[in-house]
């Protein structure tokens, strides 16, 4: 595996930068669009015995483009009494954190945007920036519902940051590295108690960690059953209440692209990332099918998350905190302890 991008042609720095920017944009928007169409439009409709969008394009597949067009045409609205600069900045902060998470995810042996030795650490750190954006949105909207939504979001995201990180620690101990690429390689080369035919996707040995990660991820994404910050039936839409048009679109992209990003991280940590069993890691065409493999695994995890999202009622704020502090965090800590003992013993 080469430490730098091995391309056939030598590109100038600005050319590489442009290519990577376009790459990140694609990596963010394509999964987000797919998730919205496949799950939010079609799977949800299927579960609720209705058809969903059917008019725009075959089976409504162009519906999202129509929606984006509608949002872009809308008036750029600031509520009276809003803190205009913070109000305008908030969606950008949220989307920015999403874009930055994708930067550290490896898509193939040589297909990555940047390779950082502490990749997973950086990804988790960046993901918590979005809390600031949400808090800004809640505060700047000059709306009581938004303020409550923003504060709930802050409390919730901070509480669930911990199980999220602690769930990852188990994987990091087992892989022995913080590097995302290294974690993929460790899973492909590993073996489950001496049996190494399919490597060791950590979902088998770190199953508790996987469950913790998906639950905490659900809460980080503020999706039901943890959607108190946006609870439509209580807070109307929480911190989103006053947003419309382009700025709402940014929040919307942020929400579903973050779902994709977290799912991609979960796929990398627990399902073996871009690697496939029985296929040589260093073969050149893994760079082509690697992203597709990761995408498929990502959709699998998003499916789990969305399934719960469309089925469950939501918790109350205090019950959510109880779940995080009394159950998830102690279980995660026990998981870390068991993992480290086994790591040293075996």
């Amino acid at each position, binding site marked *: 595996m080469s430490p730098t991008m091995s391309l056939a042609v030598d590109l100038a720095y600005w050319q590489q930068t442009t290519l990577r920017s376009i790459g990140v944009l694609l990596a963010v928007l394509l999964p987000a669009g797919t998730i919205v169409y496949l799950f939010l439009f079609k799977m*949800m409709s299927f*579960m*609720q*015995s*209705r058809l969903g969008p059917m008019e725009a394009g075959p089976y409504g597949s162009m519906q999202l483009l129509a929606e984006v067009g509608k949002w872009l045409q809308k008036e750029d609205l600031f509520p009276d009494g809003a803190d205009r600069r913070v109000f305008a900045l908030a969606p950008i902060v949220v989307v920015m954190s999403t874009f930055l998470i994708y930067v550290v995810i490896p898509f193939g042996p040589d297909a990555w945007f940047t390779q950082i030795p502490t990749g997973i650490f950086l990804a988790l750190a960046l993901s918590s920036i979005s809390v600031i954006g949400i808090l800004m949105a809640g505060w700047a909207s000059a709306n*009581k*519902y938004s303020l*409550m939504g923003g504060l709930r979001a802050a409390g919730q995201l901070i509480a669930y940051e911990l199980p999220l990180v602690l769930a990852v620690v188990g994987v990091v101990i087992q892989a022995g590295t913080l590097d995302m690429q290294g974690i993929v390689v460790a899973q492909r080369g590993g073996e489950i108690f001496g049996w190494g035919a399919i490597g060791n996707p950590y979902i088998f040995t770190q199953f508790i960690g996987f469950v913790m990660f998906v639950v905490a991820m659900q809460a980080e994404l503020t999706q*039901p*059953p943890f*959607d*108190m910050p946006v*609870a*439509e*039936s*209580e*807070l*109307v839409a929480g911190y989103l209440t006053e947003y419309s048009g382009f700025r709402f679109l940014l929040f919307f992209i942020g929400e579903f692209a973050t779902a994709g990003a977290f799912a991609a991280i979960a796929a990398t940590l627990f399902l073996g990332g871009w690697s496939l069993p029985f296929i040589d890691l260093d073969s050149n065409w893994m760079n082509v099918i690697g992203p597709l493999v990761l995408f498929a695994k990502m959709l699998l995890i998003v499916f789990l998350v969305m399934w719960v999202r*469309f*089925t*469950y*009622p*939501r*918790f*109350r*704020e*205090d*019950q959510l905190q109880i779940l995080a502090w009394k159950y998830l965090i102690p279980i995660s800590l026990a998981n870390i302890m068991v993992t480290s003992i086994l790591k040293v013993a075996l």
Partner: protein
Amino acid sequence: MVALTERQQLAYIASQAADARVNVELETEGMTLNIGPQHPATHGTLRIIVRLDGEQVIAAEPVPGYMHRGYEKLVEVRTYPQITTLINRIDWLGSFANEVPFILAAERLMDIEAPPRAQWIRTAFFELSRIANVVLFLGDMAVQLGATTPVFYAFRDREHVLNQIEAATGGRFHPNFDRIGGLKDDLPKGWIAETKQVMGKIRAFCDEMEELLVGNEIFEVRTRGIGVVPPEVALSYGMSGANLRASGVDFDHRRDSPCGLVYDQLDWKVWTHPDGDSFARYWVRLQETREACDIVDQCLEKLPSGPIMAKVPRIIKVPEGEAYVATENPLGEMAYYIVSKGDLNPFRVKIRSASFNNISIVPWLLRGVYVPDVITILASLYFILGDIDR
């Protein structure tokens, strides 16, 4: 199922009051939040002013009246047959049930009794409108708690019931089918078999809701012990219907004063629940929907033949007098007090609708709860705005 003792209920209320008092003593600055008139949880235009301390409610005050349509005044200038058109719109989800107590009161004043077939069909429609109404509650409660899916099932299965109502009466929401002395039409051909099939679908829906929600841990923690109404409080606030029975008070007009309807000839059961919390209110309504399906089936099986209209004069003049008739409507006790001076139109009509009394407990019930529980409690009390404001 563990029944809450009276002492536990009082302890719960006392602890909530104590929490509220501590927060007042800490003197954190409160916030006044206007829930409504336009808010997704109020299914209409009910406004609730809540004084909040953080997420906890210190005081709550419902402000009804945003949809007052003045029916009590309007019916004074309409003839008796015209009035059913208006009062259909009081509880718009179970509209046929609104007509029944009014027609029964008018019949009592005129000393007419509807023929048996009409009474049996009336009872069947009364229960059909109960199903059409409560099925929506069973899904809507879930949507207030944040689960989006059940409400679509509710709309899907309510549609079958509405189709049956439409097939027989011509109106989906506002049948306007009840007449003084009987019914407008007889049942169409094949209707009975179809309706029995629909009842099967509604039972399947109830089973589905039971599997989807009642056993769900999140649903249970969100509803159990939330909004506990002790029986004596429920009675003192004049609550009625499923809200009262969920507090353990075994009272049902269908069984206790079955005037003009044939409930005394049917085999059915009044469901109560001892807890008095939001879960109990959901559970009682779920069981009542199943019971209503059984009642409809029985009515259709035992339906006698004969005329559907008694001999009634062409121009209806109600003799002088007063009559009060109460029935057990989908939302609770609904009653009409008619004062007639012997004219074509009533002199004065007082409409006692269930939701208005049911939400009068809101200031008492919401004190000390959290904002999400406000929504749970409002959803579980189940009011229709037209039924509050008339």
